[in-house]
């Protein structure tokens, strides 16, 4: 059915394009005019040469005045003939106008349908790029004598009813640094929903405590999967659960061998990112993994 419709449209577009070219474009009008002139010239030549032959057969001289007269007579006949064929010409013009209009409308409808498809694709792309998800929430429990006491909450998306996994830290300093390995996938992968950017928080340190002396985070479950990446299939937006598992496996592999993922062309960047904020007693903030790239911190109360 689609093939037949496509063939019909092709014929319609061809007739329409030809009509538009011949009757609206200077080159087309020129070609049409030239063809008519050639046809009229041929006709006149035929008539005049016929008359000349008849005169010669009758032994009469064929003068220029006779030739002009014959030509003018024939031209008048052509005008009269054209006037007689006017209803037919008007009918053809109307039919061509109808075909052009129908073709234009069909094209517009096709363009509109294509536009709707493009909007749908772009909406999915933008939605995938605008996504973010929580990596860790930080609650500053206390801040005294130059020490920060905080609770880190890791989200287990696989079992939302289970109490969140937490870890308490007590370190010297004024700023809390949450250090994570960040893996940003190629935009084509993110936009298509084939991958999601990943971040694995692995250490906490402060402005006074160097990273090498920081506190390691226990964010892995018994199988070695970070809590925030354990998800039921229905919560893995825009990516098939199998693909999600595969990408997670790729991340683990890429953590073992950076080159493996990069050579596969799926990883845009792999690096460490220690996001930080000054610790204020009673305040909490959330570290988010942005699908447009990198990590961000937002006030927990803002969401």
């Amino acid at each position, binding site marked *: 059915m689609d093939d037949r419709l496509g063939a019909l449209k092709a014929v319609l577009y061809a007739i329409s394009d030809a009509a538009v070219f011949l009757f609206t474009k200077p080159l087309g009008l020129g070609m049409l005019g030239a063809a008519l002139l050639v046809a009229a010239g041929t006709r006149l030549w035929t008539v005049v040469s016929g008359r000349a032959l008849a005169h010669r057969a009758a032994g009469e001289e064929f003068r220029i005045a006779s030739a002009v007269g014959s030509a003018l007579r024939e031209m008048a006949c052509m005008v009269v003939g054209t006037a007689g064929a006017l209803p037919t010409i008007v009918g053809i013009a109307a039919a061509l106008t109808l075909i052009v209009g129908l073709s234009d*409308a069909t094209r517009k409808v096709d363009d*509109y349908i294509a536009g709707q498809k493009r*909007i749908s694709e772009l909406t999915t792309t933008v939605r995938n790029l605008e996504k973010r998800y929580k990596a860790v929430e930080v609650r500053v429990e206390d801040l005294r004598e130059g020490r920060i006491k905080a609770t880190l909450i890791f989200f287990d998306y696989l079992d939302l009813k289970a109490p969140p996994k937490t870890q308490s830290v007590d370190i010297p*300093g004024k700023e809390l640094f949450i250090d994570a390995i960040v893996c940003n996938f190629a935009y084509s992968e993110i936009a298509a929903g084939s991958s999601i950017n990943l971040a694995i928080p692995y250490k906490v340190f402060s402005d006074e405590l160097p*990273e090498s002396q920081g506190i390691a985070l226990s964010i892995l479950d018994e199988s070695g999967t970070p809590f925030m990446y354990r998800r039921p299939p229905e919560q893995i937006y825009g990516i098939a659960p199998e693909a999600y598992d595969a990408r997670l496996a790729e991340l683990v592999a890429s953590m073992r061998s950076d080159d493996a993922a990069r050579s596969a062309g799926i990883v845009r960047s792999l690096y460490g990112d220690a996001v*930080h*904020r*000054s610790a204020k007693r009673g305040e909490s903030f959330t570290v988010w993994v942005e699908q*447009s790239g*990198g990590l961000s911190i937002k006030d927990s109360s803002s969401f």
Partner: protein
Amino acid sequence: MRRSEGKGHRNPALGILIIVASFIMGGYFWLQNAERLQKHRIDYLENLSLRLRSEIVPLRLMVLSRDNGQVRARLKLYDLSGREVSTIEKSWPGAELYVDMLLLPFSSESGDAEKADSWLALPYRVFTDSIGAASGTLLFDAYDSGGFPEVLRGVAWSAREGSAIMAAYAKARKLAAQGLPASDSAEGGYGSAVHEVAKLAGFETGSVYKVVSRVKGGLEILEE
């Protein structure tokens, strides 16, 4: 009498033709309008998609050497038009280099004044895994231009935007000089110290890496 009856009687074909023509014209104008709206929507989504992928490079770095537990690196700072603003070359004790950026929410003149629509990324300090951030090298002075951060030149800021930037920059510098977190210079501000991970993605000596700032506040390190 007949004439008057004849006058009142109209041709039904003409009426149908007018109705059909009206529907066709209405449909055509609806389609025209729908196409116009559709084009606006596509342009908006395409621009948004491009904006989400857009990148600003405020800093490039190259590790020059690693000797005796020291990392020597050269950092180059750039303004928003890509013009080089400053160069810093220094050695730091440690194995992994951290480039700390200050990210401050910003409301542009054209956007909603109540809501931040972008982020200002200011190079903050450099430290390593062996030295605490508080002992790192502050970068604020390296791009000071009469109280305006040179790294944010290269675009036409309005007077209000320029004043807001200068105020936030002055506050951040003051806090940093006092040994206090510069992220407190604006509500919602935070720091992001992007770094190499020695066992996973270390900076190769002699290679150039760029720090990329994304529109939603995220930072990345990409090899050039």
